[in-house]
């Protein structure tokens, strides 16, 4: 190996290490001092967050609008696709994900969560009139659509375990960047069912009930909450205090009924799937 080549390799490695070494997010004191908090929201996750003619809408935006009025600092918002949100929070680029992120064991390792803002148990949706699928066990061997890096993907081991009890097995899995594409493929018969949370699927059925039909719940009861970088307790308690206030004054249920078309009695602290306490 020539000397120059070795130098270039070392240089490249040094640049990389400085890139990937984790930076910590701003604490609440730092946020107050600099005068703004940066939150990330999604753009294609109805009814929680979506965009119509360039305007952000949905349940989380309604909550965010109230937070903007009450917060003692400016709230800056970045709207981006799901794939960039949690990595952005974990790396400290955003102070919080004001998005309905499902609380999972995997995510709890790198992120802290606020109190739940919605139930988010997974369920499946099938084509209307597809008689091959009558119950959960009929998903055995079927082609299923899930979202890359989403909770629908992470629920698959639970589904596999459930199918095993009736002698079934997991069929082919197709991963999508956006659920609209999975729904399209379901209508196109490339998929037999799509797995997503019960709230989003209910919204789908209310819009496209002629094409799709809601099936049973899949896996353990789970919740969606806002996510904060692990250990950033100041920001987590700030958001929790805000959410507790909305719960107390009735805004919480009102907005749920308005946007999610269903209101939940939610616990006051984050819970892992199956109502287990956070570790």
């Amino acid at each position: 190996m020539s000397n120059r080549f070795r130098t270039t390799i070392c240089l490249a490695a040094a640049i990389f290490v400085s890139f990937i070494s984790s930076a910590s997010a701003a604490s609440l004191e730092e946020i107050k001092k600099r005068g703004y908090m940066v939150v990330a929201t999604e753009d294609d996750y109805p009814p929680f967050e979506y965009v119509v003619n360039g305007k952000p809408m949905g349940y989380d935006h309604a909550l965010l609008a109230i937070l903007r009025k009450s917060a003692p600092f400016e709230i800056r918002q970045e709207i981006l696709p799901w794939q960039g949100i949690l990595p952005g929070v974990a790396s400290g680029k955003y102070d919080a994900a004001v998005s309905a992120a499902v609380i999972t064991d995997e995510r709890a390792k790198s992120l802290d969560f606020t109190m739940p803002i919605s139930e988010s148990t997974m369920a499946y949706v099938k084509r209307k009139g597809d008689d091959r699928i009558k119950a959960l066990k009929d998903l055995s061997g079927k082609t299923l659509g899930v979202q890359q890096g989403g909770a629908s993907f992470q629920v698959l081991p639970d589904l596999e375990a459930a199918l095993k009890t009736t002698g079934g097995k997991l069929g082919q899995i197709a991963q999508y960047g956006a659920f609209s594409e999975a729904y399209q493929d379901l209508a196109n018969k490339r998929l037999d069912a799509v797995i997503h949370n019960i709230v989003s699927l209910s919204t789908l059925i209310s819009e496209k009930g002629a094409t799709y039909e809601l099936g049973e719940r899949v896996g353990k009861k789970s919740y969606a909450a806002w996510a904060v970088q692990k250990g950033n307790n100041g920001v987590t308690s700030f958001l929790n205090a805000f959410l507790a206030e909305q719960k107390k004054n009735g805004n919480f249920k009102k907005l749920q009924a308005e946007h999610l078309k269903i209101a939940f009695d939610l616990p006051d602290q984050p819970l892992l799937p199956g109502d287990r306490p956070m570790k």
Partner: protein
Amino acid sequence: MPSLAMLLDLLRGAGITVIVSGLAILAGVPLGLALAAGRTGQAPLIRSACALYSSFVRAVPVVTFVLLIYFGLPRLGLALNPLPAAILALVLNTAAFNCEIWRAAIRDFPSGQLEAARALGMTRRVAFWRVVFPQIWRASLPTLVNEMTLLVKASPAIAVIGVVELTRKTRQISAVTYEALPPLVLAAIIYGALLALLVAGARWLEHRLTKHLRTA
């Protein structure tokens, strides 16, 4: 169903695609030339730095590169908003590919001409601008235009950091309408029109700039 409102919404996304790709092309072509000059020049350190840059950037998928710029640069003290970060990522990406196009043209340039220019007393710099460049840009133009079309088609990668360009618009629309196909069909037509304009523009430019070479 496709509607006028949908088309207008998509055209807003197309505007971002045009601005971002356009700036990346405008900056990336000369930057690629500078890199190619570095790679074929005489300073050994600059040669290997340019080679490393070009090889690395061409090896990294555009979407990974965009994430690296957006999430990585703040560590080096440069925190860019999504739009400038997207433009920077595409500039740096297309410059690496343009570097290889320019380099191939420089390498294939008949050395006799350069030797003749040097024998007439031109410095390397003067010989480059007077003799080499006027010939290599014409040889490189078709390949450069090809790279520009590839860049426009790679531009949806910037959606990952929240820049809503044409393809991301189709996602946003279909998330609400639950129908993926209508916005995609419209987007494909818009992309086709944009690339046809780009190629026609390049032809026109070449025609104008080579007028003096044609005999009437």
